[in-house]
Each structure stands twice: as C-alpha cells, then as structure tokens.
C-alpha cells in the first residue's frame, strides 16, 4: 500500500453526518445546533470568523471534547461522545490549530508514533516515504521541537498521512507558512484525494479555499449559516455580512 492510500474510497452516502450538535462552555454557545454533511472524496472548506465554533466542531467530531447533545455519524458509526482514540481508530485523523508536536521525539519517531496503533506493518518504509513527500528527510533525526513553525505544520500533516485515515480534518494547516511549504501541503492534499481520502478543512486563506475546496461551509456564532460552492458563498449576502459586518 502506498503512503497516501486510505482504507476505503466508496461513493454514495456521506462519510460524515452531523445533526443538531451542541456544545456550550458556561454561557458561551461555541457550537449551537450545527448540522452538516461531508461527502466521500470531497474536500469541504469550513470558514467563519474567529470564535465562530470551527475548531470546537473539530474537537467534537474528533472526540477531544464531548458534545452536550446531538449526533455525529462517521463512516456508518455513531461517534458522538466516544473517546478520541476510538474515533481515530475508525479512520478519522486531525491536525491542531497550533501544531501539536511530540517535542522530545525525533521527526521520524513522530511519524512512527502515528503508526504505532493499528498501522505498524511497513511503518518505517511509509515514514521514509512521508518524509520524502514532505521534504522533511533532511531533518529526520532532529527533535520536533527544533523544527521551524512551517516544518512543524508539515510534520503534523505527515502524522495524519501515517494514520492512513479516510477522513482528515485540517485546522488551518497552511496558516503562516512559507509559500513553498504551502505548495507541498496542497500537492499532498491533491494526491491523497486522488486516493479517495476526504477532507474537512478549516481555513482563513480564501485563495486556498477557492482553489482546493469543492464546497464551502460557513459558520458564525456556533451555527452553520451557509453552504455551497465558492461562487455561491461570495454572492451570499449573509456570509458577506458575517465577514464584513452589517451596513449601518
């Protein structure tokens, strides 16, 4: 199996279905009745102003945070409230907004750790392939904490690749990185999609959203306010008001 192959690449029913999902932190309604679907092989963009609930939604779907109520269905499994590791083993992988490195481990060990649970066979070869794909081979033995911010984003993306997931959640994976690193990540996303992997991507870079995403989902104040193609979204007055404010 190639380094970029996922488990399944079927068509038909959506791979991710979220229904009436709620998560409040005290008085803050971080996610307030979100419903959305992501189709198989799709690259869906999740956009919205800061504080609109995008990252919390990722945490709910990936099991890092438990929902107050609502349903999350991934690849035929009801996963709402399940532990993060159990969800990951079903084939869902994610990155974090701030790169979550295993600081004291080498770059190679970071990749191998991602394969330690369930994907160990051939892990060393796949780690070498992933290092080459992401041009991290020259820092393979360096500690993760010694990498630049952009290289850390690449390494975290590499860990996701090592998981051989069917659905990948990327949280601002190209934010603040050098254009060369951004190009490497975008090419890798395209290759992974060719192998049937689905993406849900949080992104503030509208150029990337337009070029990469098949469909855009817009969140504001913990709710989904619009969904559609990039052109549909930029013509949507509610979305424009969300980003630019209401006219006085």
């Amino acid at each position, binding site marked *: 199996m190639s380094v970029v192959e996922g488990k399944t690449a079927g068509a038909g029913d959506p791979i991710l279905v979220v229904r009436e999902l709620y998560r409040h932190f005290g008085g803050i309604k971080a996610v307030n009745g979100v419903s959305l679907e992501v189709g198989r092989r799709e690259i869906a963009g999740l956009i919205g102003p800061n504080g609109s609930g995008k990252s919390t939604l990722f945490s709910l779907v990936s099991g890092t945070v438990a929902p107050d109520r609502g349903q999350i269905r991934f690849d035929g499994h009801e996963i709402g409230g399940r532990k993060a590791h159990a969800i990951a083993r079903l084939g869902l*992988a994610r990155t974090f907004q701030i790169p*979550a490195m295993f600081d004291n481990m080498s770059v190679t060990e970071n990749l191998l750790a991602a394969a330690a649970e369930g994907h160990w066979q051939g892990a060393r070869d796949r780690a070498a392939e992933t290092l080459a794909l992401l041009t991290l081979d020259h820092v393979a033995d360096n500690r993760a904490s010694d990498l630049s911010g952009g290289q850390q984003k690449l390494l975290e993306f590499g860990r996701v690749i090592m998981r051989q997931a069917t659905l990948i959640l990327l949280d601002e994976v190209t934010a603040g990185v050098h254009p060369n690193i951004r190009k490497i990540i975008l090419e890798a996303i395209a290759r992974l999609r060719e192998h049937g992997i689905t993406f849900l991507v949080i992104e503030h870079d509208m150029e990337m959203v337009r070029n990469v995403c098949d469909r855009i989902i817009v969140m504001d104040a913990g709710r989904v306010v619009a969904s559609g193609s990039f052109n549909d979204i930029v013509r949507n007055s509610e979305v424009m008001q969300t980003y630019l404010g209401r006219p006085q």
Partner: protein
Amino acid sequence: MKQRRTGLLLLIGVIIVLALLPMLVNNYWLRIATGALMWAGLACSWNMLGGYAGYINFGHSAFFGLGAYVTALLMGDKLAWPFFATVPAGIVVTALFAIMIGAPTLRLRGAYFAIATWAFAEVLIQFTSVMDFTGGIGGIGLPPFLDERFFYFAMFGAAALTYLITWALFERSRFGLKVKALRDHEPAAEAIGINTSLVKLQTFVLSAVTASVFGAIFAYWVTFINPKSVFGGDITDQMVVMVLLGGLGSLWGPALGGVGLFVVNRVIWMYWGDTAFYIAILGAAIVLVVLFMPNGIAGLFSRDGAKSGAVLDKAVGKVVGDGQGGPN
C-alpha cells in the same frame, strides 16, 4: 555506528566487572555495591512513569514497601514461604494495588497526581503502623540469611532485568513510542489512536511491580523492616533526585544518578559518621541540575548535550502548573 559499538563494549565491560566484583572486593564494599544496584534499579523503575510518561509519582515507595511487606509476611514463622515464592506473590499484590490506585489517579495530572500518589504511600504507612499482623510501628523481622554474595547477585539480576525491560519496551518498541507521545502531548496522542489511559496504567503497573521486586530483596537482605524504612517519603525523594541528576527520561540516567548519589551517601557516612550533610548535597544537586544540566549527566553524552532539558521542563511544568493540571 562507531558510537554504538563503543557503547556496547562499555556495557559488556561494566557487566563483566559487576559479575566479578564479589571476587574483587570485601563484604563491606560488596554491601555498598548491592545498595547501589538497588537504587539504580529503583530509580529506573521510577523513571518509567516519571521520565518516559511524564507523570511524577511521589508515592513510588508504596510499591517498594508492598514488595517488602509481602515477602516479610510470607516468610514469617506462620507461613514460612521460601524467598523465591514470595517475589511473584509480591508482584501480584503490587500489580493489584497499582491498578486500583492508578486507574483513578492517572486521570489527574501534574501536582494533583503527585499529591494523590504521595497520599497513597502515607496511607500505607499509617495502615501498617496500626495493624497487628504487619507488626505495627515496631516492624517485622525475617529469617536471617547472611550471604552477601546472594543478595549482591539478586540485586544485580533484578537491576539488569529492569534495564533490559526498559530498553526493550521504552527504547525499542511501539509501546515506548506511545508512552513518549502521551508525555509530550496527550490530546495529540489520543488523536493518533493511542488509548492514553490504558498505556499510562500499563506503565504505572510495570513501574510499580519492578519496585516491588527490589522491596522483596531488600526486606530479605536487611532481615527487618518497619513502615518508615520501606514506605517512607524519603525513599521516593531519593529516586526522584537520582533520576533528575542522571537524566530524566533516559535509559542510563537513573543508573548514573542512582549509583553516584548512593556512593556519595556511603562515603560521607564512612568519613563523617552521619548523613545530614548528604541532605545538603541532595539539595545542591537539584539546584545545579535544574540550572546547568537540565538533561542530567546522561545529557552530557547525548547528541543534544545538556542544553535542552525539555523533558525536565515538561515534567516540572506539569507539577508546578502549566495549565495542564487537574482532572482530565
């Protein structure tokens, strides 16, 4: 490659010297060597959870004491078990206690975990102090067996096995990757499919049963134990300092720290007759390590040198509070 071969030759040399030591030194120095091997092994057992998993256990003496008390009770007049049968019994009892204590406390982090484990050791001190069957505060005796070579080789075997297990599990296997991943970023470790609760508990139990083996040998060696002599907080404190001095989260650090500090302790005792000065040396060692050698002695020989100290930062940060404290 050359560095690996040098390391292997050094290791073989150390093993040969240790195997021949009873023929080279008198009983006095053999007792010191036996103690040094015990502390090297105990420090290594503490390092499994404290260094590799980043969970600072201030109650590790509880497991050392459990091993000691199980051996003492089973070898007593009433039961009169042979020593080697008491060791597995101690392992089983300790493992059960470790599961019972670890399952709830490993949900805590940082200072909360440290306090919970410290409290567990204190509970055992109080329990064994008031119960008749443990001999109360006066302690309990064991049948004497005055063969220094036996205890030397028992400690040597236990220490060698401890380091072999640590090397195989934490440095050369997937299990080690999982443990180190959860130490460095627990949510990210969960996100790559690692059941962090289970891995932490496995590490905790392994760390505990290893300490219990040394407790069992220690009890038989000294032929008399009491609550303070095997559950006392100073036993854990010494393990912590030995690991910090030698190198937190490294394979050989605990051996360097354990042997180094114990030999210093004995030499001070030999020349000055008491060990109050040793406490001052422990304090100074902690300050010097934190300031100038955050990766410990082992760090001086590693690729990163002594400059980083990230494992120490992580562990100390967890205890003094870096936003990761409290229940998960």
